[in-house]
C-alpha cells in the first residue's frame, strides 16, 4: 500500500516497515499522501508532523535560509513531508550545492535545486513558481 501511494519516493520505505508506529502515531498518513496533497504550505504540513517524534518532518522545498534572504514567507512556502532519514540526505545534498554561510540569487538556487531534485520534477516546478521564476 505504501508503495502504491508513492511513499518510497519520499523515503518512507523504512517507516512502512514499522506499522505499529504508523498506526498509533501517524493516522493521518493515509489521507496526506494523495497525489494532490503531496506538496502543501509548510505551516500546514508542519502541523501534521507534530507528534511523530521527528520520524517525519516537513521539508521546505526552497530552504528557509534562502527564503529569508529573499524576503519570502517561510510559512506559506511549498513543502513536503519526508522521513527523517530522507530529510537529512536531501539537506546534505543541498548543502554541497549551496554551502552554509553563502547568500545566493534566485537563479543559483534554482540551478542547485534542478540538480538536487532531478527525481522530483514537481518539486522543481513548485520552487520556481514560489521564487517567481
Amino acid at each position: 500500500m505504501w508503495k502504491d501511494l508513492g511513499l518510497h519516493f519520499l523515503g518512507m520505505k523504512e517507516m512502512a516497515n514499522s506499522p505499529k508506529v504508523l498506526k498509533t502515531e501517524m493516522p493521518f498518513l493515509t489521507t496526506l499522501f494523495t497525489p494532490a496533497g503531496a506538496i502543501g504550505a509548510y505551516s500546514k504540513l508542519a502541523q501534521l508532523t507534530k507528534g511523530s517524534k521527528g520520524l517525519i518532518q516537513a521539508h521546505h522545498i526552497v530552504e528557509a535560509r534562502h527564503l529569508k534572504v529573499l524576503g519570502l514567507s517561510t510559512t506559506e512556502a511549498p513543502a513536503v513531508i519526508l522521513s527523517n532519514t530522507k530529510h537529512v540526505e536531501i539537506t546534505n545534498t543541498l548543502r554541497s550545492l549551496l554551502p552554509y554561510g553563502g547568500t545566493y540569487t534566485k537563479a543559483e538556487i534554482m540551478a542547485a535545486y534542478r540538480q538536487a531534485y532531478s527525481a522530483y520534477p514537481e518539486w522543481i516546478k513548485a520552487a520556481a513558481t514560489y521564487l517567481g521564476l
Partner: protein
Amino acid sequence: MDKSGSDLFRFIKMKYYVLTSKSASKGESGESVGSQYDLRGACKNCGTGAGLLGALHSKGLRDVKSDLFYTLDGDLLISKNLYSNFLNEGVVLNQIVEVFENGEVQLPFYHIDPKISFPKRSQQSQGLKVESQCPICKQNGYFNDVVMGDLEKGIPTHVKPLEFHYEGIDENLLKQSDIFHTWEHMGLSNLKAEGNKVIRYARPLLIVSEKFKRVIESFKIKKIFFSEIILHLHAVELG
C-alpha cells in the same frame, strides 16, 4: 614626530576582516518574530538600513548552546560568556542588544548591532555580485559570487572568497568600535508584505578588528572565517 607613535599609524597597522560563519543558521529573529525597527534612517523605497529598536525578538533559540552564531534572518548573536571575554580583552562592540524568545523569555545571548558602518567598498573588491537591487539606495541586493557545483561529477559549489578594498577610511571611524557593518546589505528588502513577500530588511555583513578576531579564535568556534580587508589609505601628513 615619530610616525610609529601616532594614532593613525597604529590604526593603519591594525588588520580588519569580514566575519563569516559556515555553520547552519539557527532559529529566527527580527521582523518575522516581532522585533521593532526604526525606519527614519532607512531607504524610503525598500527599508534597507532600518535600525533595530529595543530588544531583538527570537524564536527557536532556547536550546542553542553556541557561543557565536547567525540566525536564519542574518542577525549575529553571541553568548554572555563570549561577551564577558570581549569586555575583559577591551574589545569595543559599540552596541549590544538583549534577546527575548517569543517576546517573553530573556535568552543568555546578546545581539551585536554595532550601528557604525564602513563606507562603500571600492570597485576593485571581489566576492559579491548584485541582483534585484533597490534602484533608490542601491545598498541591498548583494549576493555571494559562486561557481555552481555539479552533483553528478561530485564537484561542490565554490563560494568565491571575499576581498574587500576600501579607499581613505577615516581614522575616527576605526577608533569607535572593533566591529562595523558593511555599507552593502545581503539579499533583498521589502518595506511591505505583498503576496508571498514578507517585511524584511537586508542585513549588512560585519567587519571586525584583529582584537575581535583574537578573542573569537581563543574560543575555538568552528566554521568561523575571517577575510582580511584591504585598506588603501590616502597619503596623510603625520606630525
